[in-house]
């Protein structure tokens, strides 16, 4: 349970971090909150030569408003997400999901950007980012680029980030209750600290008795987070009722290929996705 020896760098700016990474050879790991990387290193399943710790890069922390978006610094901790007034107002789905992440100690150290860059399909936040159509701001040796959530999660624990790059921020649209948005993160796990067997992140916008926009992300229904596109399409424009929501939710698992594993068989996961989608949308739509 003791990691192999490694070199350690703790830059204080993004530019300095990029330089350290560029100079660090081909076995560099970036350390954010360390809630996944450190356990893996302790088991010696990872043994990087250089660890670049971003905890002192202040510019990567905090939430700011930029026009019609909120930009969350990648090193903003889960605890900071839970306490942020801008997110409470404009991104309650993220706040709700973050509140279900692990336990208080993990939420104190773990970061939003770290969880997204790690891209565990059982993690709660990738599906939220995908549902919200977040934009990922990435810094690299050649400058900055922005990647849409739909293009960020490539495979199991694999993202669009390439060697030498750092995820610096996540831009989220403002979805306020004043504009008719309702949200719900419906998580299914066996004990409070366990990973999601399946979870559903739902945000719907209501105007009168109809849903005008629906965004539904699925956690752990495949190697990457997924959108329940068929359900989203079925919800838009119909009169909201338990019947219409149930009918739409029945398509939640369409096109998914969840794994068979210790925690659940694929058919059970697909069943759960339908039930949890119905519940999430029902709650988000205020039924």
């Amino acid at each position, binding site marked *: 349970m003791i990691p192999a020896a490694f070199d350690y760098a703790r830059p204080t700016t993004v530019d300095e971090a990029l330089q350290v990474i560029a100079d660090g050879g081909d076995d560099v790991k970036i350390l954010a909150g360390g809630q996944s990387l450190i356990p893996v290193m302790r088991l010696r399943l990872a043994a990087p030569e250089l660890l670049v710790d971003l905890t002192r890069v202040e510019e990567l922390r905090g939430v700011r408003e930029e026009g019609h978006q909120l930009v969350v610094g990648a090193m903003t901790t889960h605890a900071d997400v839970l306490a942020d007034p801008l997110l409470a107002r404009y991104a309650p789905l993220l706040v709700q999901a973050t509140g279900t992440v692990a336990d208080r100690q993990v939420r104190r150290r773990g970061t939003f*950007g770290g969880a997204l860059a*790690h891209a*565990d399909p059982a993690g709660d936040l990738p599906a939220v980012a995908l549902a919200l159509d977040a934009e990922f701001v990435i810094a690299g040796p050649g400058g900055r680029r922005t990647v849409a959530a739909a293009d960020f999660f490539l495979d199991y624990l694999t993202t669009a980030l390439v060697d030498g790059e750092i995820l610096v921020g996540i831009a989220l649209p403002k979805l306020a209750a004043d504009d008719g948005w309702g949200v719900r993160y419906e998580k299914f796990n066996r004990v409070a600290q366990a990973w999601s067997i399946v979870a559903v992140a739902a945000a719907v916008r209501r105007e009168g008795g109809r849903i005008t926009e629906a965004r539904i992300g699925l956690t752990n229904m495949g190697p990457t987070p997924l959108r329940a596109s068929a359900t989203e399409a079925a919800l838009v424009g119909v009169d909201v009722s338990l019947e219409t929501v149930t009918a739409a939710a029945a398509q939640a698992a369409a096109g998914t290929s969840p794994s068979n594993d210790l925690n659940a068989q694929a058919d059970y996961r697909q069943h759960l996705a339908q039930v949890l989608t119905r519940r999430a949308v029902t709650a988000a739509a205020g039924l």
Partner: protein
Amino acid sequence: MDELAVTLGMDPLELRKKNWINAEEFPFTTVAGLEYDSGDYGQATQQALELLGYDELRAEQQRRRESGDPVQLGIGFSTFTEMCGLAPSRVLGSLAFGAGGWESASIRMLPTGKVEVVTGSTPHGQGHETAWSQIAADSLGVPFEDVEVLHGDTAISSRGLDTYGSRSLVVGGAAVVKAAEKVVQKARKIAAHLLEASEDDLEFAGGTFSVTGTPGASIGIQEVALAIFAAHDYPEGIEPSIDAEATFDPENFSFPHGTHICAMEIDTETGFARIRKYACVDDIGTIVNPMIVEGQVHGGLAQGISQAMFEEAIYDAEGNLTTGSFVDYLLPTAADLPHFDTGNTVHAATSNPLGAKGVGEAGCIASTPAVVNAALDAVRHLGVTDLLMPLTPERVWRAIHHGGDGGDRDPGLSNAQGVTSGAAATAAATGGDDQ
């Protein structure tokens, strides 16, 4: 028992009542020759029903069934009696057991007035230090804070057996009582000598020897300890010490009993089981420390509930343990357990001077069947007649919707994030950028 009741078309409690030993039948000798000394199963059961709010929950269960509520409610019982206080050494001998069942204690009365109690029963978190101090303080009439309990090092405590089988208080605690009685007997002789009175005229109460009918003529046991340490003035023919050692060998086992009732909600759409309410009443004889007793019951309940609902060692076809860490081998925390409504009835054991019966295992014995019985009661009307432990949501869901007992879990690697399970961790090490 609940299955038998269903088969017979009887109420599960009626079936138990019909078969258990009635209060007036104690002491009761079983066909196997054991003598159950005391108890009242009916009283404990009645009290547990009241703690649970049984009638109300049964009515709610009925309503949920009639309305076809996706969340069904079940109530499960476990009435149990246990054989504790291990053990009468002669009985162990007759079973060719390799050791005796006695326990030892010694009491050292220091000249400072402090009291050292050496116990052969070594605690690992059961609170012996507190309970043994209470027993010594009560028996000797000295302040609780003047007692120190020593244990665990054979250089200090050379004679002793174990802490197991809910025996420590019943056998080891009784040894402390016996040692204290000897201390008082020895001190009585010294006190009589110092007070120039007959031993028969001495009363011992609250740590003080007083001469009957002579106000003011008294001496405390802690003063006696100092006087005998100086040994300037003590009776002829006795040794100058009031320290004592005792070995207690019980003549019978103790027989704690209890009634545990679990009310369980089952979400029939997902199979998720949630304990709605848990009530239990244990008769563990005389209670020395109520807080320790409650702690022991809570810990036992958590363990027994965990067996019923969470813990499972799963091996793959090659014999590898695939639930080898606490990410995959689930344990509940406080967040996953209900409030416990606990109670006691008190029918003192007759086989030891404390009247204690033992409580270490009560919770883990009774809770597992109560929980599984409750889950079955919630879904039996849906055609489920058996459920494998632990009650994973998938198992319960499959039993409801596909019949059977829920089946074995896939031993394949868990999908838990990186930390432990091989495939995930390797992927994390090689592919994932853990920013």
